[in-house]
């Protein structure tokens, strides 16, 4: 029976100090590792007969603007289908040098997911065969899911802040709010 502790022990046994830590939320283990070894870890999890994480459910990034030096966290969600078991792998990157090796040679689905991840967070997947924007317009010159970019469209000029409850005041005839 596969469980989180078994996976963690296996990884620590193999990679030692390069496994930085772990956390368990909602019965799912998230393991932090050295970004230089991301491919090696994925390959090990793939090849090992007991682990056999051979299905990549998801790949995404998270932006933590306050964690200086490790702002972008690339997250892999791996799945062992025969044993119905998920784990997460996390690799922190410096936002000024967001390079990580591509997993598209190992998991074909990573090709699309890494393009999407690049599109929204600007993570540079080294070795990806076609790292261009996939969801957003080609002319876009920023990575919109990074936290420094507000959700609202900044190109609008017709927006009246008063109507959105920011500044100003409403005047309902005789009284104002």
């Amino acid at each position: 029976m596969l469980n989180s502790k078994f996976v963690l022990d296996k990884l620590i046994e193999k990679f030692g100090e390069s496994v930085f830590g772990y956390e368990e939320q909602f019965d799912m283990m998230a393991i932090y590792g050295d970004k230089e070894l991301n491919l090696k870890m994925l390959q090990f999890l793939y090849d090992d007969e007991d682990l056999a994480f051979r299905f990549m459910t998801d790949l995404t990034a998270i932006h933590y603007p306050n964690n200086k030096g490790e702002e972008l966290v690339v997250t892999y969600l791996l799945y062992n289908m025969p044993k119905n078991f998920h784990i997460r792998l996390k690799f922190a990157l410096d936002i000024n040098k967001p390079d990580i090796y591509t997993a598209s040679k190992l998991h074909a689905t990573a090709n699309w997911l890494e393009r999407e991840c690049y599109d929204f967070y600007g993570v540079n997947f080294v070795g990806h065969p076609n790292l261009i924007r996939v969801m957003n317009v080609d002319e876009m010159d920023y990575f919109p899911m990074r936290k420094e970019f507000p959700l609202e469209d900044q190109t609008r000029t017709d927006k009246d802040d008063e109507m959105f409850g920011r500044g100003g005041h409403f005047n309902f005839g005789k009284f104002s709010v």
Partner: protein
Amino acid sequence: MIHNKRPVTHNTNVKIVDMPEGVQGEGFMAMQFSKVIGLARKNSIWPLPFATSCCGIEFMATMGSTYDLSRFGSERLAFTPRQCDLLMVMGTISKKMAPVLRQVYIQMAEPRWVVAVGACASSGGIFDTYSVLQGIDQVIPVDVYVPGCPPRPEAIIDGIMRVQDLVENESLRRRSSPEYVELLKSYGIS
């Protein structure tokens, strides 16, 4: 021998549009040509539905038998811009979709009209975000805006009727007027 036993029933609910004003006499009738063309155009608009989200679902109800858009002469919906008169944009248009929409508009032949159905097509609606076009009038000129999120079929029909008013009363020379050329030029369409 002609059998005519079945009583002939005429559908008295069928409405026929009124004739334009004119001078009638024995064997002739004189009226403004533009009025006749306006009448014909108004009652035979071919809509091109460009439906991307829930407003499109409302439009499906509008086309259905309960609301019956065909009553207004818009029987023939087509998905080819070359043959259609009225571009109906229904739903959220993302920035990535904008060039496609513009291309569809360019492919339509004059005279052409555009109706923006619903909040998203009119102004971006609730999607005030980096990926959504804040109103299709940023890329193509719009004749009628239908408010609502989504608008009820009645509202869409009202929008169509406002388009009919425009079509009926449009000057035949409007499309070659300097104002119209200037308008298209401001959108980069010529």
